C-alpha cells in the first residue's frame, strides 16, 4: 500500500505500522510538524517528560519491561544532546530504542543555524546505527530499517535525524516489507558442531557453572524457559550478572546469587574453581571478572553470544558459539535429552557440598539494628511486602543498586531495570515511569539513593500528569554512599565532596509535585509505612532514613581476583584501609 503523505505523517504512520503504542518525548521547533500529527490521532500515545534524558530512560524502562523497542521523540540541538546519556546507556546495556530527532532544514545544515548540532556525528559512537534523512523519499525505508536494526541481533539504540523541511515535504509512504537487509544480517542460529562439543564438554564436567547475562533476557521469555530447563536437567549451579537477574528464579535451589564485584562469595568462588564455565549472553565485563589474569584459571569456557565481537574480547574461550541464546539453548536442551547426558553424580555432589560450604559463609550478612534502619533490611522488607504482586523494580546507581540486586529476589525476567554498563545516576525514576506506562496495573518501584534521585527528580511531574503511581524508595544515607565507600577504601577516608549537604525535604518535595511523601527512620515503623506506600494510588516519595556509613559487601577490591573477596565479617577498618594495593588504586 503506497500513499502520498508528508514526512511528519510518515513518521506517525510508520510508528503505527511498527506496533508502537507509546512515545516519550519533548517538543521543540524542529519537530513541530511531527507534534502536529501526534495531536491529531490517538493510536500512538505521547508521554510528555520534563527533560529529554528522562524520555530516553523511560523508553529504556519501557523496552526492558516489555521486550518491545522504546521510542522517543525530541527536538534538534539541545533536545538531541540531552538524549546522549540515555543513548549511551542503551548502547552498553543492549536496549532496543528508536530515537527520532528533529533537525534544522537541510539547506541550513552546516551553517550553525539556531539549535543546530551534528546529531549523527555526536550520537555515532553511542548508537547501533544512525541516519540523517535528507530526502523524504528515503524516510519510510529508513524508519522501518531503524526498527529492524534496533530490535534484531544484539539490540541497541538507533537515531533518525529528520530535518524540518523533510517533515513538511510530501512523498510516497510504503509500509514495512520483509526484505533482507543489504549488509546487516545478524546470525541467530548457532553452529551445530560447536553446540555439540559444548554439550559434551558439559556432560563431562565435574565442577560446572552457568554464568548468564542480559543476553538471555534480550533473547526473550523462551530463552529464560529453556535456560531453566537446562539447569534443571544438568543439576549445575547458576549465577548471573546484574543485567541477567530474573532469567533464573532467585528462589531456585541451584541459584548462587549474582556474581562479580558485589556478588556473593559462593558465586565468585564457584566461578574461580569451576572446571567448565558456560557463559550464556554475558560479556566478561570487568565488574564480573575481577583481575583478568586470575579469572577462573582452571576452567574450559563456552561462550554463547549473538555478537561475534563479544567473543574473545577480554577472556579467550574454548568453544565460542555465535547465535541467539534461545536458538542455541533449544539445541543444547535437545542434544542433552537425546544424548541422555548426565554429569557424574558423585562429582556433582562433591561440587555442591563445596558450594554449600561457601554459602555457609553467609556473605550477605549484616549486623541488624533495632534503632536505625539498615539499608539491607529496608530492601528485605520491601521485597517481603511486594512478594506475590506484579512488581517492577528499577534503581539508580550506587550502593542501593547493589543492595537491591543482592536482597531483592527476582523470579521472572523483565522485572529488573537497572543501568548496568554505563552506571547512570538518574536512570531509575524515568525507567520506573516507562515500566508503569507499559504496565499500568503493576507496582513500579524505583529503589533510589538520595544523591541519584535528584538527577532526574523533575520526572515526578510527568508521573503526576499521566497518573503513573510510581514509588520512589530512597535509601537516604545522606551520602553518595558508593563514592564514600571508595574514598574509604582508596583515599584514606578523606570524604571529598561525597556528603549530600542541603538535601531537600523529600516529603515536602513529593507534596509540591502533587504526590505523596513518607518519612521513616525507625525499623519498627518500616512495615506500616511500606504498606502505606503500596496502597497509595499516586506517586510516592519514601524517604527511608538508613544507617549513614554502611558499606556494601562482599566486595572484590579493585585489582583482586574472585577468591580474594572482602567479606562483611572480615571488613574491619584496617582490612578496608588496606584492601586495595597501589596498582589497584589506578583502576576504576
Amino acid at each position, binding site marked *: 500500500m503506497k500513499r502520498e503523505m508528508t514526512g511528519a505523517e510518515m513518521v506517525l504512520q510508520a510508528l503505527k505500522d511498527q506496533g508502537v503504542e507509546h512515545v516519550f518525548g519533548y517538543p521543540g521547533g524542529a519537530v513541530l510538524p511531527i507534534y502536529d500529527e501526534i495531536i491529531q490521532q490517538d493510536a500512538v500515545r505521547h508521554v510528555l517528560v520534563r527533560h529529554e534524558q528522562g524520555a530516553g530512560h523511560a523508553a529504556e524502562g519501557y523496552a526492558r519491561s516489555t521486550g518491545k523497542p522504546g521510542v522517543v521523540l525530541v527536538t534538534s540541538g539541545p533536545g538531541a544532546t540531552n538524549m546522549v546519556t540515555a543513548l549511551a546507556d542503551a548502547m552498553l546495556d543492549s536496549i532496543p530504542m528508536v530515537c527520532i530527532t528533529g533537525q534544522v532544514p537541510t539547506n541550513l545544515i552546516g551553517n550553525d543555524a539556531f539549535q543546530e548540532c551534528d546529531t*549523527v*556525528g555526536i550520537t*555515532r*559512537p553511542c548508537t*547501533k*546505527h544512525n541516519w*540523517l534523512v535528507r530526502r523524504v523519499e528515503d524516510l519510510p525505508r529508513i524508519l522501518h530499517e531503524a526498527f529492524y*536494526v534496533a530490535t534484531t541481533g544484539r539490540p541497541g539504540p538507533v537515531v533518525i535525524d529528520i530535518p524540518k523541511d523533510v517533515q513538511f515535504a510530501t512523498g510516497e509512504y510504503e509500509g514495512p516489507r520483509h526484505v533482507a537487509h*543489504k*549488509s*546487516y544480517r545478524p546470525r541467530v542460529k548457532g553452529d551445530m558442531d560447536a553446540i555439540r562439543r559444548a554439550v559434551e564438554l558439559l556432560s563431562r564436567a565435574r565442577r560446572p557453572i552457568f554464568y548468564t547475562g542480559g543476553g538471555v533476557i534480550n533473547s526473550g521469555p523462551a530463552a529464560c524457559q529453556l535456560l531453566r530447563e537446562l539447569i534443571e536437567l544438568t543439576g549445575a549451579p547458576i549465577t548471573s550478572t546484574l543485567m541477567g537477574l530474573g532469567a533464573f528464579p532467585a528462589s531456585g535451589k541451584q541459584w548462587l546469587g549474582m556474581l562479580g564485584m558485589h556478588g556473593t562469595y559462593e558465586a565468585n568462588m564457584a566461578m574461580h574453581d569451576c572446571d567448565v564455565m558456560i557463559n550464556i549472553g554475558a560479556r566478561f565485563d*570487568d565488574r564480573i571478572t575481577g*583481575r*583478568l*589474569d586470575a579469572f577462573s584459571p582452571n576452567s574450559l569456557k563456552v561462550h554463547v553470544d549473538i*555478537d*561475534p*565481537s563479544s*567473543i*574473545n*574480547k*577480554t577472556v*579467550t574461550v574454548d568453544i565460542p558459539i555465535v547465535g541467539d541464546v534461545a536458538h542455541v539453548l533449544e539445541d543444547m536442551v535437545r542434544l542433552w535429552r537425546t544424548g541422555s547426558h548426565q554429569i557424574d553424580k558423585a562429582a556433582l555432589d562433591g561440587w555442591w557440598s563445596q558450594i554449600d560450604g561457601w554459602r555457609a559463609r553467609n556473605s550477605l550478612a549484616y549486623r541488624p539494628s533495632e534503632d536505625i534502619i539498615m539499608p539491607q533490611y529496608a530492601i528485605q522488607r520491601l521485597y517481603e511486602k511486594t512478594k506475590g504482586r506484579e512488581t517492577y523494580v528499577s534503581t539508580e546507581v550506587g550502593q542501593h543498586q547493589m543492595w537491591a540486586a543482592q536482597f531483592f529476589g527476582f523470579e521472572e525476567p523483565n522485572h529488573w531495570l537497572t543501568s548496568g554498563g554505563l552506571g547512570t545516576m538518574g536512570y531509575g525514576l524515568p525507567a520506573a515511569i516507562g515500566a508503569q506506562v507499559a504496565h499500568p496495573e503493576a507496582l513500579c518501584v524505583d529503589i533510589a539513593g538520595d544523591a541519584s534521585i535528584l538527577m532526574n527528580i523533575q520526572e515526578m511531574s510527568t508521573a503526576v500528569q499521566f497518573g503513573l503511581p510510581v514509588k520512589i524508595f530512597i535509601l537516604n544515607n545522606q551520602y553518595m554512599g558508593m563514592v564514600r565507600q571508595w574514598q574509604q577504601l582508596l583515599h584514606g577516608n578523606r570524604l571529598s565532596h561525597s556528603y549530600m549537604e542541603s538535601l531537600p525535604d523529600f516529603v515536602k518535595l513529593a507534596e509540591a509535585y502533587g504526590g505523596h511523601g513518607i518519612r521513616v527512620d525507625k525499623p519498627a515503623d518500616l512495615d506500616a509505612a511500606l504498606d502505606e506506600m503500596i496502597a497509595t494510588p499516586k506517586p510516592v516519595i519514601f524517604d527511608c532514613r538508613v544507617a549513614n556509613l554502611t558499606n556494601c559487601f562482599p566486595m572484590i577490591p*579493585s*585489582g583482586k581476583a574472585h577468591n580474594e573477596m572482602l567479606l562483611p565479617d572480615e571488613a574491619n577498618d584496617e582490612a578496608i584501609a588496606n584492601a586495595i594495593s597501589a*596498582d589497584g588504586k*589506578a*583502576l*576504576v
Partner: protein
Amino acid sequence: MNAQNLNAPSAYFMAAVTETPESHTLSVLVDNEPGVLARVIGLFSGRGYNIDSLTVSETEHEKHLSRITIVTTGTPLVIEQIHHQLERLVPIHRVTNLTVEARGRNFEKPLERELALIKVAGVGEKRLEALRLADAFRATVIDATAEHFVFEITGRTNKVDQFISILKPLGLVEVSRSGVAALQRGPEGL
C-alpha cells in the same frame, strides 16, 4: 597513528599484553553513503586501535560500493576484535583480512602498492644524484624546473619509505602518499 591499544576497555585490566603486535591489511566493502568513513575511523579512534594506512574510494559505482583498505597493527586478539567490531557496523558488507588470507596461501603478504609524489629541490651534484636514484627506484619525473623535481613512485610501502629517506639529504621538500591499496593474489575476488 593512534596510541598503542592494550585491548583494555577499562583501566580495570592490568593484564600485560604477552602477544606481539603484527601488521595486518584489512579490506572492507562498504555502502558508499555519507558518514561511512567517519564510522570506521571513529571505531578505530574510540577503541584505541591503530591506523597505519587508510585508503578509500568507490569501486563499484552501480552498486554504490566503496572499498576501504586499512593497514593496522595489533596482537592477534586485537586484530580479531577489529575485524568483528568492523562487521558490527551496519553499512559494512564484508571485512576480509588479506594478511591472514595471504598466509593461508603461503605468502607473507597480499599484493600491496602505494603511490607517492615527492618534491626535491636542489642544484648541482645533489640534483644529479636525486635523478640517478629515481632511475634506480623506477620513479618517474612528473614535474621539473632548473631547481626542482617532482617524482612519482609506486611500490610496496617499504620501498617508498626507503626512497624517501634516501632523498632526505638531497633536498627533500615534501611528500604526498596515497596509502596502501591491496588485493588478494589469484583469480578470485572478495
